[in-house]
């Protein structure tokens, strides 16, 4: 398993780390029992993401996907931000090892939660609800990341 250079760059030099003191919306996903927790705080202006910060407890990929998603989202409309897919996050990082694909869900889910948090606290309808994988009690972050060559490996 090798991380791309871009993953390592974002892991070693994560962008936008921290918490916005005057955040308009906050999203927190993950569980320390599973080893990764992410918190995103956003400032919103004109229904665009004006500022953004993250904090992440997790592996290299969790930190790198968190970092890049903040870069991707900055300046986006709320609709655009919640539409960022885990695939886009992984592509933006130059790919992720199969075993790490679930980390990009953490990042997109955190962002979605933050946007909905902003909307709901401002009396508006949430727009991401229903698409947040971590809200699904059946959600298994590792479900999709099997190596396809192993489809028929083990009993």
């Amino acid at each position, binding site marked *: 398993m090798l991380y791309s250079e871009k993953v390592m760059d974002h892991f070693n030099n994560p962008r936008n780390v921290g918490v916005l003191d005057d955040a308009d919306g906050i999203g927190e996903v993950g569980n320390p029992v599973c080893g*990764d927790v992410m918190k995103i705080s956003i400032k919103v202006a004109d229904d665009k993401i004006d500022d953004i910060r993250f904090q992440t407890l997790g592996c*290299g990929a969790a*930190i790198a996907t968190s970092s890049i998603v903040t870069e991707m989202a900055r300046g986006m409309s709320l609709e655009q931000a919640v539409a960022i897919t885990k695939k886009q996050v992984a592509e933006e990082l130059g790919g992720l090892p199969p075993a790490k694909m679930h980390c990009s869900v953490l990042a997109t889910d955190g962002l979605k939660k933050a946007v909905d948090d902003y909307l709901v606290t401002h009396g508006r309808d949430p727009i991401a609800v229903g698409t947040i994988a971590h809200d699904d009690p059946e959600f298994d972050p590792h479900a999709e990341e099997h190596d396809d060559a192993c489809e028929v490996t083990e009993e």
Partner: protein
Amino acid sequence: MEARDAYLDYAATTPVDERVLEAMLPYYTQVWGNPNSLYRRGREAYTALEAARERVVGAIGATHPNEVIFTAGGTEADNAALIGITTRARPDGGHLVVSAFEHHAVLEPAQFLEKSGYAVTYLAPRPAGYIDPEDLRNALRDDTVLVSVMHGNNEIGTLQPIRELAEVAHERGALFHTDAAQTLGKVPFNVADLGVDAASFSGHKIYGPKGVGALYLKRGTPFAPMVRGGGQEFKKRSGTQNVAGIVGFATALDLVLAELPEEAARLASLRERIVSGVTSTIENTIESASYPERLPNIAHMIIKGVEGEAMLLQLDAKGVAVSTGSACSSGSLEPSHVLLSIGCPPELAHGSVRVSVGRFTTAEDVEYFLEVFPPIVERLRMMSPLYAKMYGSATT
């Protein structure tokens, strides 16, 4: 603080010692015959192979050359022991006991046997990190065919009371296997003293080559081969033997045993320094297992509120190599089954770090690690959304 190359993961693998490589080289381009051939080149290779076997036989206290069969590593030896002994001794099913913190090379064949109709007890260690003989006694059944408990745990580094455990197993008529991949060459290992029926070894843990190991099988121990074919290794493991690798393994074993007493003391003091250095300078850190009988070379600690892979990668960026039991590093959802088995909560297991020293580790390597590690932990704790909440402050 100059950047170094501080390899502190000797429990994962070791470099091949130059003296070992030297001993291996003739067997690639000079004495390269098939040891199963009758002519001169075959006999030369056969002689080298059997000389290597005799050395291993002597080194582990076996009594007969046929008691040692060479394998492609510790994993194969473990698989062969578990499956070969069990299916041969009780083809129609029965019961096995393996400790819950065995290496996957033992656990997976145990699970395979379970799926094939055997009953398996995964015996929990005590929280201090050892298998209690009384717990084993209670787990045994009349139809228990085999007990497998590792000699030294590869993560937390605790040694197991093998002699007592083997005695308890034998009293009940069960055979006893121990995975000694981590202990061979690090603490005294003698099959007669320990009273085991079978034991597994791996070359690349003792400055020998990767892809070679050995299985000790006491004379008369029931065994069905796993790899079948030409009948090499006394019909117990077919396939043209890796003569160079086997010579390397035997040479590595000789060297590591010759240096054992002094080296074990040296490593133990490095290990102590690591544990005390980390736990005294970084808050919310503890040693993972308290059992006092332990491998001299493995330090294992919980760094609360940090994820292991992130630590590992940051240390790597500083030239330090360690390992971790976090789920992320293994590509699985669960953190180390070893830590969970001794009652470590998953959120702490994700933050475990194993620092293991070896032949080429210097005090400077250790001091360097102790210097670069605290700021890494601090940085990661500061980046965590939970640390300040849970522990008050992220500073160390």
